[in-house]
C-alpha cells in the first residue's frame, strides 16, 4: 500500500509544481515530485511502517494516508518557499528574519552573539523541544507511570479517539476542506461589494464552521472499545467559545464605559482591571463559594429572598459549563478591558466628531468607527483569550467542578491531566496532547495568516 500512495504523492507533487506554482522546467517538476514523495514517506517510515503491519485496522490506514498527505503538503510548501526565495521574489532570509540588523553592528568574535543567546537557546531546547519530541514518541506507546516496560502501539492511541468507520472518516474532513477551498474560490471570482460576493462571504464563514462540524463527526462518541472523545471536543469548543465571547464582549463594554473622560477616570480604570492579576485558581475558588449549593450566596439568596431553589450547578452540564465560563470570563475581564482601553486611544477623534455632526447615532458611531478601529486589538485578544481558554482554565475547573458532572466540564487540557497523570496513562495522555498541539498550531497559523506581522506576547 505504501508504493501506490507514494506514486500518487509524486504525481501530485509534479502537477502542483507545474500547474499551481508554474515552474515548468523538468528539473523543478522533478524536484516537486521528489520532495512530495519524501514528505509523504516520512510519517510512515518514522513510525517504523507499523501502520501497514498485519494487525493494523483500516482506521490506522486512513490516519496514515492523512499523515502522508500532510507530509507531502508541507514538503511542497517548503519547496515552493525555497524556490521563491531563490528567484529573488523576496529579500534574503537573513535580513528579514534575524530582525533589523543595524548598520554595522558589533564586530567582535563570532562567538559573542552565540554566548548571548546560549542560555535562551539551551532552555528552549531542553524544556520545550525535548518534551515536544517526547510527547510524540510517547503518544505511540502504551505507557504507565511506574510500569517496568512500555509497549509500542503504533497509532492506536489516536485511532481509538475516532469513529471506526473509514468511509465517514475520509468523507467528512474532505467535505469540510472542499467547502473551505470552494468558498475561497467563489470569493475570488466575485467582485467585492456585489451581492454575490456577500453570499460568498457567508459561504466561507459557513465553510469554516463546517470544519468544526466535521471534527465533531469524526471524534468517537464512545463504544466499540474506543475512547469517548467527542464530548471532550464539544466541551472544549463550548467552554472556549463561551469564555472568548463573554470575556471579550464584557471587556469591550466595560472599556467603552471606562474610557469616558469623567472625573476620577484613572481610579475607575484601576478598579476595573485588577482581576487581571487574580489567578485562575483563585477565580475558581471565588466562584465556587458564590455558587456553592449549600453555602453560597446565590443559592441561599434565591432561597431566602425569592423562595427559589437553585439547582446544583454541578449536577447540570449546562450550568456547570456556564459557571466555568462565568468565572473565567470574570478573571480575564481585566485583561480585555486593559487592551481595549489602549485600543480605544487609536480611535480617530476627528472621525467621531464628524459622525456626530452628521447625526450618526451612538450605535452607528460604535459600529462604523469604533469597531473597525479596534479590529487589530480584537484580533489580538481573540488569540490570547483562546489561549487562556485552552490552558489556564485548568485551574478554575480543578477548583470548581473537577470536570464534573459526568465529564461535562472536562476540556481538552483537563482530560490530558486526568488521563495522563491522575490515571497514569501516559501514552493516551500524550496522544491527546498531540491533538491539542495541533489545535494550537492551527490557531497560530491562522493568526500569522490573518495578521501578518503581529507577534503576541500574552505570557509564557
Amino acid at each position, binding site marked *: 500500500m505504501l508504493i501506490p500512495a507514494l506514486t500518487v504523492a509524486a504525481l501530485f507533487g509534479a502537477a502542483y509544481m507545474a500547474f499551481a506554482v508554474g515552474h515548468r522546467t523538468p528539473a523543478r517538476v522533478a524536484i516537486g515530485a521528489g520532495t512530495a514523495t519524501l514528505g509523504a514517506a516520512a510519517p510512515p517510515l518514522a513510525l517504523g511502517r507499523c501502520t501497514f503491519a498485519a494487525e493494523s485496522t483500516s482506521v490506522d490506514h486512513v490516519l496514515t494516508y492523512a499523515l502522508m498527505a500532510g507530509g507531502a503538503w508541507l514538503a511542497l510548501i517548503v519547496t515552493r518557499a525555497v524556490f521563491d526565495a531563490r528567484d529573488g521574489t523576496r529579500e534574503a532570509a*537573513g535580513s528579514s*528574519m*534575524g*530582525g533589523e*540588523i543595524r548598520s554595522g553592528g*558589533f564586530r567582535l568574535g*563570532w562567538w*559573542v*552573539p552565540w554566548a*548571548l*543567546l546560549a*542560555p*535562551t*537557546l539551551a532552555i528552549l531546547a531542553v*524544556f*520545550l523541544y525535548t518534551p515536544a519530541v517526547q510527547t510524540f514518541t*510517547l503518544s505511540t506507546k502504551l505507557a504507565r507511570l511506574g510500569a517496568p516496560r512500555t509497549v509500542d502501539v503504533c497509532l492506536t492511541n489516536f485511532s481509538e479517539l475516532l469513529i471506526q468507520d473509514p468511509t465517514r472518516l475520509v468523507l467528512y474532513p474532505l467535505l469540510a476542506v472542499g467547502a473551505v477551498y470552494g468558498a475561497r474560490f467563489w470569493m475570488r471570482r466575485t467582485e467585492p461589494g456585489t451581492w454575490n460576493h456577500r453570499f460568498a462571504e457567508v459561504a466561507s464563514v459557513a465553510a469554516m464552521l463546517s470544519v468544526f462540524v466535521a471534527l465533531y463527526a469524526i471524534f468517537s462518541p464512545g463504544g466499540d472499545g474506543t475512547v469517548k472523545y467527542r464530548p471532550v471536543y464539544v466541551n472544549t469548543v463550548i467552554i472556549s467559545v463561551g469564555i472568548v465571547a463573554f470575556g471579550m464582549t464584557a471587556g469591550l463594554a*466595560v472599556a467603552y*464605559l*471606562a*474610557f*469616558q*473622560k469623567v472625573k476620577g477616570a484613572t481610579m*475607575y480604570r*484601576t*478598579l476595573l482591571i*485588577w482581576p487581571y*492579576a487574580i*489567578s*485562575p485558581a*483563585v477565580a475558581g*475558588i*471565588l466562584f465556587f463559594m458564590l455558587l456553592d449549593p449549600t*453555602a453560597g*450566596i446565590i443559592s441561599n439568596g434565591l432561597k431566602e429572598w425569592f423562595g427559589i431553589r437553585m439547582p446544583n450547578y454541578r449536577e447540570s452540564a449546562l450550568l456547570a459549563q456556564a459557571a466555568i465560563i462565568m468565572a473565567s470570563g470574570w478573571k480575564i*475581564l481585566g485583561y480585555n478591558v*486593559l*487592551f481595549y482601553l489602549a*485600543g480605544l*486611544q487609536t*480611535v480617530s*477623534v476627528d472621525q467621531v466628531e464628524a459622525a*456626530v455632526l452628521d447625526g450618526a447615532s*451612538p450605535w452607528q458611531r460604535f459600529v462604523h468607527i469604533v469597531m473597525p478601529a479596534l479590529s487589530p*486589538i480584537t484580533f*489580538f485578544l481573540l488569540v490570547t483569550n483562546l489561549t487562556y481558554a485552552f*490552558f489556564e482554565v*485548568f485551574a478554575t475547573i480543578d477548583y470548581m467542578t473537577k470536570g464534573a458532572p459526568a465529564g461535562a466540564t472536562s476540556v481538552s487540557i483537563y482530560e*490530558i*491531566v486526568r488521563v495522563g*497523570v491522575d490515571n497514569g496513562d*501516559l501514552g493516551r*495522555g*500524550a496522544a491527546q*496532547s498531540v491533538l*491539542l498541539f495541533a489545535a*494550537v498550531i492551527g490557531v*497560530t497559523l491562522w493568526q500569522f495568516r490573518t495578521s501578518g506581522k503581529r507577534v503576541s*506576547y500574552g505570557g*509564557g
Partner: protein
Amino acid sequence: MAGLSAGVVKKGLIRGREWPIHVLLVVTILVVGFPVLYAALISTQTNGEVFSFQLTPGSALASNFNDVWVVRDFGTNMWNSTQQAIYVTIGKTILSLMAGLAFVYFKFRGKWIVFFFVLVTLMMPTEVMILAMFRLVSGFGWQDTMLALTVPFLASATGAFLFRQHFANMPVELLEAAQIDGATPLQFLRRVLVPLSWNVIGALAVIQFVYTWNMYLWPRLIIRQQSSQVVQVGLQTLQNIDGGLTYGPLMLAAIIASIPPVIVFILLQKPFMSGFALGQEK
C-alpha cells in the same frame, strides 16, 4: 490617556450627562468586585455562620487566620511563590535582554535559523507537552525543588522578541556612539539600552510576575511536598482543615494569595500600559 485632545471630545465616545456614567461605573466596579467582597465576608465566618446565611461579618477571622497561617503554614507557600516569581521575572528579563541584543546588534551566520528556532516556540506552550515535561524534569530529580519551578521558564520567545522589537526601533546613532567609546556589548546594554527600556522591562516584569505567581498546573504536578508547594496549589489543602469543607479559611487564603500580584500590577501599571502601547503600535 493623555492622547485625547481635550476640548474636542470632552466626554469621550459616549455623549450625555456625566452622572449616569459615574453611576454605571460604580455599579460595574461593584459587580466586578463582588466575588472578592463576598469572599472577604466569608473569611470572617465559621462554617455554622456560613450555613446560616449570615450577611454580617462573623466571629472567626482570627481563628481562620490561625488555620491558614499557623495550622496550614500558608506563609511557607507564600514565600515559595514569592521566590519563584522573583527568580523567573529577573531571570527571564536578563535572558531576554541578552537575546534581544544579540538579535539586533550582531550579524552572524545562521541567525535566521536561531530566530526561527525561537519563533517556533511561540506555538509550543508548555501545557501541551506537560506529561513529557513532567517525566523529563522528574528524571532530573528536580521534584520539590525551586529549580523545577524556575529554570524551565527562564527563557521565552515572548521576552526575546519584545526586546528585539524595542531595540530595533532605537536610533542607530546610539550604537555608533557606543562603538566610538569602545563599549563592550554588555556595557552598551547596561548603560544605554536598559535605561531606555524601563517601560518595556516594567511591562514584561508585570506579565511575568503575574504569570508565574498564578501558575497552577505545573507545580500541581511537579511539587509534592506541602513545604515546597506554591500558593495556588497550596490552597487545595485549605479546602479541608478538619473534616468537611471549611469555607472561611479557604476564602481568607484565596484573598491573601491574591495580594502580591495585585499590588505588583497596580504599582507597575503605568510602565505596563506604556510598554504595551509601544509594543502594540509596531
